[in-house]
């Protein structure tokens, strides 16, 4: 998968939830959205991005993905 595109998509999601005044709700919203709408290979690619290229993820997305691993797909 195109990691640049996935990073952009994740950051877009982050921009929506970041406006929420309740930070915990925003963080949970990001991971839940990715879990519910991203196909596992996209989430696997996101795992790699988080591990290898996290600097391009926005801080709130990084924080959300690191705080809660429920979005991660089952191991293949």
């Amino acid at each position, binding site marked *: *998968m*195109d990691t640049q*595109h996935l990073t952009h*998509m994740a950051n*877009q*999601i982050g*921009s*929506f939830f*970041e*406006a*929420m*005044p*309740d930070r915990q709700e925003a963080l949970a919203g990001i991971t839940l*959205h990715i879990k*519910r*709408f*991203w*196909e*596992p*290979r*996209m989430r696997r690619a996101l795992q790699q991005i988080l591990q290898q290229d996290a600097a391009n993820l926005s801080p709130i997305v990084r924080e959300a993905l690191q705080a809660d691993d429920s979005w991660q*797909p089952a191991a293949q």
Partner: protein
Amino acid sequence: MNTQIHDTDFGTPARVSERMVTLEIDGQQVTVPEGTSLMRAAAEAGSMVPKLCATDSLEPFGSCRLCLVEIDGRRGFPASCTTPAEAGMVVRTQSDKLQSLRKGVMELYISDHPLDCLTCAANGDCELQDMAGVTGLREVRYGLAGANHLDSQKDESNPYFSYDPAKCIVCNRCVRACEETQGTFALTISGRGFESRVSPGQDQPFMESECVSCGACVDACPTATLQEKSVIQFGQPEHSKITTCAYCGVGCGFKAEMKGNQVVRMTPWKDGKANEGHACVKGRFAWGYATHPERITKPMIRSKITDPWREVSWEEAIAYAASEFKRLQAKYGKDSIGGITSSRCTNEETYLVQKLIRAGFGNNNVDTCARVCHSPTGYGLGQTLGTSAGTQTFKSVEHSDVILVIGANPTDAHPVFGSRMKKRLREGAKLIVIDPRKIDLVGSPHIKADYHLALKPGTNVAMITALAHVIVTEGLLANDYIAERCEEKSFHDWRDFVAKPENSPEATAAITGVPAELVRGAARLYATGGNAAIYYGLGVTEHSQGSTMVIGIANLAMATGNVGREGVGVNPLRGQNNVQGSCDMGSFPHELPGYRHISDTTTRQLFEQAWGVTLDPEPGLRIPNMFDAALSGSFMGLYCEGEDIVQSDPNTQHVTAALSAMECIVVQDIFLNETAKYAHVFLPGASFLEKDGTFTNAERRISRVRQVMKPLAKYADWEVTQLLANALGLKMDYSHPSQIMDEIARLTPSFAGVSYQKIDKLGSVQWPCNDAAPDGTPTMHIDGFVRGKGKFFVTQYVATDEKITRRFPLILTTGRILSQYNVGAQTRRTDNVAWHAEDVLEIHPHDAEERGIKDGDWVGVQSRAGETVLHAKVSERMQPGVVYTTFHFPESGANVITTDNSDWATNCPEYKVTAVQVLPVTQPSEWQQDYQRFNETQLELLEQAASNEGKA
């Protein structure tokens, strides 16, 4: 459902009143609602009063003098069409005197009418002929030597109907239909006295006038003056069936009038609740594509897209497709294939495709064209209100006091609903339009928007938040409604957010380009003007913040208490005829039918038990994700039913690169569309005239599609999917689509009460339809929201990445026009090309002049994604800095220019905002030249198909 060809015409419209009046007509007691005409009351009592200028789709006019009656205690002979029934009246519709008067009137009519009844196209369907018979006219004493109109020239300019002034009786029905039903005011009566004749525009031919060819005038005409050319060609139909239009999301009911298997004409169904007897140029006339010579009726296969097609048997084609899908899954894994359901196919067909993918392919890689249009509606309304659908019936607009149209152009894209909306606006409802373009609704005959907020493309969210700011800060909230029906915390968060100074109209004017006082005025009107209804289209959804904007719309409606009763609501105007249905049927990769998430164990188990398989609990790939996965080598096969993703999806070169990377593409369609040119298997589809099923329109109305002719290629689409499923080892043995609907009803709570029997009985039914609402649900969220408490969300404006720069200084926005539909596969193969034969680029005079562009010049349109060349149309409908085009013709390459940018929540493409440069050019773009070569090659490979039949 077979129906009679000629409906009963009650002469004047039905009235609605709580007060009833009882009177006597021809000795019969009859009780009717107050306001009913004597003519209609008589018809209901069984006495059909002779008439010519009256018809029950139009308000009475009282000009023909045939419908005279006698009323005890009243002098003279009142016209029954314009005389309201009153309690205690004693009325006679027939007497010697009345007969004598009517015969005299008829004699005058016939004295100036060609007596060619035997060879007239309306023979058998002519009210003048009928009235001559009813009134007992036996001779015309005036002869034909006097002044007459018999030598008047016909106007044959319209491709679908002719106008013969010689046969006109000046009853005004066509003029009134154009005004009352369609709302275009294209027709008038030109001249006075004897010179009076129907005139399009200023004595112009129809095609040069403002006529939109909706056919309302033709329906209304009592003679052969305005006559369908198909009736002139084929003669009068002899039987008919009620079915549903296959074009836009209005979902008009039509009567297919037939001779054997030959469609003679399609006429709007009077009892169709979506359209109430009206139609547009597409549904009414543009059905000839169904038997177009370019229909492909034999299955074809090929190994590579550079190979010629080879016509094969259905068995071979299905076996080949199945073996390829199995091969790909064995080689690349279970998740390496997927499919796309069609919004142009029926609910039953869509349901079967997603079933095939989930249960047969074993994954959830299923998506639909709603991905590229209304997927943000699904997300936004689902999050806020709890369900992914419009809240109202179309009829609800009759109760609206304020109509807010956002990013929609109903008179072009949803024309029959546009006419209903215009009728309400002429009655005095207020209108707010939020759109970058000056669409027709902003200013057309007898319609003028109270506010046109001509915002810059891509700034919707800043606008909706500014409107909310005014409502919150000026104390216009519906506090009781909010307290009772909405989540308190989410409301407080939203209220505090929108109230911030940076969200005020004054602060956001720099973003939207709309003066603050206009925004304030529009917000006040929406919040305080009475019943306020929002109608929106793809100008809302097809943005990087499409879902945020849908949420913002729902926020606004909840904050003002405008959800849950007639006349209000949040109403997405769906694009294709069955977009609503395809979404309902589980076409999205994360949802099973009825919008239930695939991860929900209880729901999944329900389907697993019914289908006898284990389902994958993870969401599948969306269409853009499929393309990305194809390019990275993990998605290699696609079953695409009735969609043309190459032409309709953004960034064409990205799409074609992805398709080229796949090893097996199976296209099921009625024509060799652009996607099929990249396919390895072609399975011939069936048009809506060739199959049974149901469509669900934008108001959640499920209507029957009825087969009026056998499938040209032997199978309806649901049968083809069933063949493929069985070849893949997923047993399907449906013998009729009604059985598929029964399965849907068993598995989907909101469809639990739906059956063909019920639809036949009620005419149509709106979901939810179940034990709680056995006859369906016209208005949603009446006592509370589907999700429980309505939920507000903060809607922070985030500027699109498509920024204008010195290199790309203009914003391109795309859309559609009245005469063409979507990728044009259907309408381009009809005479609708007479109105729109190519896509053009609309550009403001200032931008054109700055670039030395004149009307009609070739212009290159270049974006970061690609370049194409179109003819320029210099138009003041555009605002400076914004250009516009349509995507109805493949060679136009509108989507060569659009980019991969998409909605944050759903990946719905940002069609509405592309930064471009426009400059004069002298030749087609490089892409267009490549396309021309590719297209010619593919058409040659198709031509070789028949000659390759049976070859190994």
